[in-house]
């Protein structure tokens, strides 16, 4: 029998530098690291971000989810991490590893559209998720606050 699946949802203040190329490079490196570390461990999910916050859903076996979360907690690029949910789930909502920009800034939306596409980020797939609605509200608020 496979290990039971858990879903963990958190958001954190985005401590990545916000100026142009630096920001893009950081985002690209985070995505690459997420894929490398998480997919091997059987962790899938989605990472939403904007200039204000990261918001992430992690799904997988408990041990692997905990290890991933612990790595995030030791990462300086995340500050003020708030854990929103940790609960067993019957099945994954995210089968791959996706990352998408959410926010109202048209400029950034365009800028990160490609990241979203290349990572398989599908806003429509998020649509029915309650957590997504919460994350979306949070990230948009935080972006406004950070602007």
């Amino acid at each position, binding site marked *: 029998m496979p290990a039971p699946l858990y879903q*963990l949802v958190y958001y954190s203040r985005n401590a990545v530098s916000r100026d142009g190329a630096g920001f893009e490079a950081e985002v690209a490196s985070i995505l690459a690291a997420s894929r490398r570390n998480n997919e091997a461990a059987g962790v899938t999910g989605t990472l939403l971000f904007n200039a204000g916050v990261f918001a992430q859903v992690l799904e997988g076996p*408990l041990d692997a989810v905990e290890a991933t979360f*612990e790595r995030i*907690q*030791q990462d300086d690029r995340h500050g003020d*991490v*708030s*854990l929103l949910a940790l609960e067993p789930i019957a099945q994954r909502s995210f089968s791959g590893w996706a990352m998408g920009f959410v926010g109202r800034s048209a400029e950034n939306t365009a800028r990160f559209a490609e990241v979203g596409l290349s990572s398989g980020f599908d806003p429509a797939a998020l649509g029915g998720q309650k957590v997504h609605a919460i994350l979306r509200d949070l990230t948009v608020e935080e972006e406004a606050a950070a602007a």
Partner: protein
Amino acid sequence: MSVHPLPNSDGRGRAAPGSDAVLDALPHPVVGFDWDGEVIFANASARDCFGERIVGSDFADLFPNGSDPFKQLAAAGRVLGLVSNAQTRFRGLFGAMAAGGFVLSLIAEEADAAAGAEADELTGMMKRGGLALRLDAALADLAGGGARLAVHCIDLDRFKTVNDTLGHGVGDGLLKKVADRMRAACRKEDCVARIGGDEFVVIQAGVGDRTDAERLAARLVDLIGRTYVLSGHTVNIGASVGVALAEPGQGTRDLLRNGDLALYEAKRAGRGRFRVFEDGMDAALRDRRELEIDLRRALALKQFSLHYQPFIDLQTERTIGFEALIRWDHPVRGRVTPADFIPLAEETGLISKIGEWVLRTACATATTWPDEMSVAVNVSPVQFKSDNLIETIVSALAHSGLPAHRLEIEITEGALLEDTSNVLKTLHALRDLGIRISMDDFGTGYSSLSYLQKFPFNKIKIDRSFVQGADEGGDNEAILKAIAGLGLSLGMAITAEGVETPEQLARIRGEQCTHVQGYFTGRPMPADGIATFLQA
């Protein structure tokens, strides 16, 4: 009551060193416990082994592996094999102390030569022995003109709660993650040691100035304080950090002590933060710490006593009861006033034990009084936060045989500030038992009239400042009159406190106060002076 210092009390010897000096000269650890297994003193060797913070910890904190209850071990009367929280094996022998409690003498089982290299099994960190060696070397280097260093003394906040509620398995898992985060916060040349159950020390190498040390301390507080996920549980703890920068010529012990003092200050400021040691912090904190250590011993050494101040019914002009007032006579400090030690007792939680002693002693004493006289006992806001206040009071009444209606509990407004609904529930439960409840020091704090509406106090005690200030007439007199009138219409008795002159007595009588308490009608007296006072 006076308590003699231990040496010389039998008249032998002259100019003998104090008992502390004798104990500190012993090369092996000696630890004193109260009846419940809480450390009330530790000699220098014990502080070296278990840390400067040993006083106040429990036997189970020092020797976490045993399963036998403390009292059973202490009464065993044979040599015990004990393993300390730092995994050192000791042979230990308990003795009972005449003044109460037990003293434990410890001999380490193996020579410490290998201990320096030994790592903590759980976290893989070095232990106290390795830390000391490492610091000795770094300080020698500093004295020779090498790089500066800082120590960060770290205590986990709320770790015990995690252990108690989620079990040792989760507790151990948490410690591993804490250790990982500490390593993540540090650089390669820094070093981290686990010196106790939830106590750690980081040696920060190559410190340029204070800002460097502050940066790491802030990072440690931040990282350790972030949420943990363990076996599906969400766990939140905090870290308090005390930082000390090494000065050339300083020894390991002094440096660690400074870090420890800064840690103490960080905890006192509310935990979950860091403080950097500064000159001057030293003296004040040392004083406080020493006072705390003395305070922890005071109950076991029977240094407290109760004095009783009469209160008079103004209608019958008779003494109808006494307020119990605590006195602390310390063999060296002399008499320490409650204003100087009660706040510290509240801060450290010692007030619960002290308060219980006061309740039991006062109730027992009151049973010897004639004419159904009552005894008033002050209960601190902190005592209301503990779960067992009602049980303690019920038990004090039952043991003494004092009827509930002869006990008055005095509270200040402070008790009603937080968690008001629970406090009110407790007060109602006490009232239902027949115990009377007074509002003490009324007029000084917030003096919110809503408190008087929220609970039917039996009595309001008007603070002495209004009684004494009313001599000049004006505002104080008006306030005195208003509070007395309020009490009258709410059906509460009114006691005027601090009456010292016949004029003040005449005035409060005119203002319809029902009771009086003060030097003019009777000073606080020891229990054995009461019979004489009542006959006079």
